[in-house]
């Protein structure tokens, strides 16, 4: 298959051999699970249970609340202890409303929705409804509700479903193992998704550093007529949506457009497996495969974890993490630091890394020497050093003008910087600042609309009062006649 070059990128040490040869093992069900109401992008889910409810495995706990939202289901059977504020798996360390479920140890399934027997004959909307009902979100880490993304084909003509098995982040091997062990399910899920999207072709993109996964997927795809495997070069951030689209189709997605505008929709391989489970088995998303790795973990591996397991329990299952200097959720390049180990595993947790001091490579930043390494490494064609200089001086408008909003926060610039300048941290800060400004502006507009509505109402009331007073002063003749008719 013909491939196309992508801009920039880096070759970090991949360190995948820590876990790549470890088969997926299921984690035993812990006594208590913690399910935050927001495990996806969009509106938080609205609970449908209360403290004291008894639930079965797979039962709905919180329904989707809004156009962009996703429901949450019980990963095991048991009793709801409470819905309380618990520290969220978020770098802020702030709490979030969380459903606390005590397992009864029976792990009994509820009555699941019936399987869709022939999904390729079913209307695409019924597939999307099932995916929405099962709470499936993008499992590569972005956690965007998948049903919404599967509806992109309703307004556009789509050519390709690009299945993302690149897994370019160092350490992570959960997608690699998934493709090796569940190739048939992934391919089937992908074909169902392509049907829901209305895309005639499926291309599975896998980096060349995963030969066994390529082999397994090619074997599974051989039985189908519309699935091809693309072996993309191992280069970070190949797994980025725009980068992968460019590498496979040669199409560059313009700023502020979607890859869907180019006829390509990208979904993760783990999402495809979840879609398979939802459509063929009626199972909601209640567990995921997590890579637990890093130098501080004695027994790293790929674990099939029920959602809501505390990270501390998951690490204990892998032999603890003594001597870790930093805990990261996700990959080391784009993952987020964990505020505490008392946070749960959620739908978007692709990895839990316990890194030693030697692995974190912390060093004092030095002045910029304007070497331009960051420009060469940027996969989006931006000028990181200039953007960082503007942001340092709080010149946000200038930073926006040269494209800070188009930065995907991949961290390649920070990785290559010989002066160890935390470039991507500047861009994260700038994007947060800009979002705050935007929120403040919206709030101001809302206040203004409220004030104007109130003034208009007061004006109306005053007018009505004036009219009433005028009428009271001069009794109108027709009113008198009417009064006469009613009361003779």
């Amino acid at each position: 298959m013909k491939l196309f070059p992508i801009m920039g990128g880096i070759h970090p040490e991949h360190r995948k051999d820590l876990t790549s040869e470890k088969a997926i093992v299921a984690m035993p069900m812990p006594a208590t699970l913690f399910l935050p109401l927001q495990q996806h992008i969009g509106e938080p889910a609205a609970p449908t249970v209360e403290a004291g409810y008894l639930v079965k495995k797979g039962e709905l706990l919180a329904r989707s609340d809004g156009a962009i939202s996703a429901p949450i289901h019980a990963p095991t059977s048991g009793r709801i202890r409470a819905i309380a504020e618990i520290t969220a798996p978020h770098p802020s360390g702030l709490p979030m409303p969380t459903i606390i479920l005590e397992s009864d140890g029976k792990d009994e399934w509820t009555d699941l929705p019936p399987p869709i027997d022939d999904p390729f004959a079913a209307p695409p909307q019924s597939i999307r409804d099932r995916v929405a009902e099962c709470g499936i979100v993008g499992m590569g880490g972005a956690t965007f509700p998948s049903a919404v993304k599967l509806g992109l084909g309703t307004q556009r003509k789509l050519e390709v479903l690009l299945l993302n098995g690149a897994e370019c982040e160092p350490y992570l091997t959960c997608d690699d193992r998934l493709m090796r062990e569940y190739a048939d399910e992934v391919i089937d899920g992908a074909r169902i998704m392509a049907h829901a999207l209305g895309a005639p072709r499926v291309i599975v993109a896998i980096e060349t550093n995963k030969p066994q996964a390529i082999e397994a997927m090619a074997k599974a795809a051989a039985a189908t007529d519309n699935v091809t495997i693309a072996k993309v070069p191992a280069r970070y951030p190949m797994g980025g949506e725009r980068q992968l689209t460019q590498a496979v189709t040669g199409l560059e997605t313009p700023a502020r457009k979607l890859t869907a505008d180019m006829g390509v929709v990208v979904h993760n391989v783990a999402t495809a497996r979840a879609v398979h489970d939802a459509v063929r088995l009626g199972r909601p998303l209640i567990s995921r495969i997590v890579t637990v790795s890093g130098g501080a973990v004695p027994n790293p591996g790929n674990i099939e974890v029920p959602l809501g397991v505390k990270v501390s329990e998951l690490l204990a299952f892998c032999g603890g993490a003594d001597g870790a200097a930093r805990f990261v959720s996700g990959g080391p390049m784009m993952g987020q630091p964990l505020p505490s180990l008392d946070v749960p595993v959620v739908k978007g947790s692709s990895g839990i890394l316990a890194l030693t001091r030697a692995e974190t490579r912390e060093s004092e930043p030095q002045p910029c020497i304007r070497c331009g390494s960051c420009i060469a490494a940027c996969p989006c064609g931006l000028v990181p050093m200039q953007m960082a200089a503007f942001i340092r001086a709080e010149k946000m408008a200038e930073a926006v003008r040269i494209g800070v909003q188009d930065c995907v926060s991949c961290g390649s610039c920070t990785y290559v910087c010989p002066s160890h300048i935390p470039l991507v941290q500047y861009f994260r800060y700038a994007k947060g600042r800009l979002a705050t400004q935007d929120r403040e502006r919206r709030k101001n507009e809302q206040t203004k609309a409220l004030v104007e509505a109130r003034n208009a109402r007061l004006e109306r009331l005053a007018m009505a009062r004036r009219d009433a007073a005028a009428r009271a002063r001069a009794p109108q003749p027709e009113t008198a006649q009417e009064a006469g008719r009613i009361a003779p």
Partner: protein
Amino acid sequence: MLLDVGSLAVMGVTLGAVLGTAAKLLAVPHNPLEEEILEMLPGSQCGQCGFVGCAQYAAALAKGAAPVTLCPPGGKGTIEALAHKLGVTPDMGQHKETVPQVAFIDEDLCIGCLRCIGECCSDAIVGAPKQLHTVIADACHACTKCVKVCPTEAISMHALPPSITAWHWQKPGDPMRH
């Protein structure tokens, strides 16, 4: 020919003089900048800037007679927009960046007198005579007018708890000494 040109010239000069005088005599003092600035202010007439209302503050701003940092409900965003519009550098020292606040009514103290409801310009307080009043937090823009009129001191301003949606990464320390 000479007559035509002469008469037109005389008419032109006379009418021009009339119009010119009228423009001077009947001029409405008006600054378009004021309106644009008024657009940018929250418009809640809370008076925390020290002026009677937003229009008066806008007039003072347009004349350059007031700093851009006086509007607490507008927050940092408004200050930056005003500074950009007026081409000035805001003196952030004058602006006390307060955490976002919201009015809160102590239910034990509220007597249902309706005064705060009459004062609230964004309809953020609901209630009826002799009934408990309450604040709709989303609509409150922390102008503190209700606090001042409450006869039982039942209203206080509370800081909004930090939320995950509003959180963002801090600016890294400043290592880049050029």
